[in-house]
């Protein structure tokens, strides 16, 4: 089956990201495909390019990247949630006259329509919230 996940929790603040990653590995182990992860609300911090957790802790941003490498998982970040929180890619930063950016590929800024689309085009959509 093709799965989509909706992640609404900020990394290192609550369990949502950990639960979602654990579920991701579980569904892949059962032969399913993790096609899309949509990061919404505080979940957009999962895409922070400059995240530097201590080396003896899980690097959640890198774990999402790894899923993209393994499964070509689309890592979609809500643009409205992201801009409010300073999670912007190079193009948006430049458009708003900011130097530096906090989001890069394989994460991509998208609209809420992509979340609706994920619900309609995937076999299962599972939400992990704070």
């Amino acid at each position: 089956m093709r799965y989509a996940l909706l992640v609404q929790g900020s990394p290192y603040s609550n369990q949502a990201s950990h639960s979602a990653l654990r579920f991701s590995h579980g569904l892949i182990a059962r032969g399913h495909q993790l096609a899309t992860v949509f990061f919404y609300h505080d979940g957009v911090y999962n895409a922070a390019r400059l995240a530097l957790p201590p080396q003896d802790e899980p690097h959640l941003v890198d774990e999402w990247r790894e899923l993209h490498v393994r499964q070509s998982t689309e890592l979609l970040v809500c643009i409205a949630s992201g801009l409010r929180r300073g999670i912007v890619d190079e193009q948006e930063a430049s458009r708003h006259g900011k130097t530096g950016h906090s989001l890069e590929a394989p994460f991509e800024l998208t609209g809420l329509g992509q979340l609706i689309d994920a619900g309609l085009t995937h076999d299962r959509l599972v939400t992990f919230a704070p």
Partner: protein
Amino acid sequence: MILHTLNRSPATSRVYQQTLDAMASEDRLLLIEDGVQGALPSLSPLFGELSGRLYVLQEDVISRGLEERCDPSIHVVNVDGFVLLTEEADKIVSWF
């Protein structure tokens, strides 16, 4: 059949009541994260109407040191079982 997940302890949040109100007679409930406290014998009677349709996530039970303390009538599933529950459900609703 809808799979519902609940990540709040019934000792600290009343969202479990909304969950129960929303559940149809064949729906299932999986307790995850702090929601696993609902599997303790002191709290599990709150879910009594779900007999046979109540599940608790093993990894979250173990990480909280509660593996010897759960109500034995509740199904314990690991993350593999969690995925299986989502396979068997038509859709998944998360309560938080």
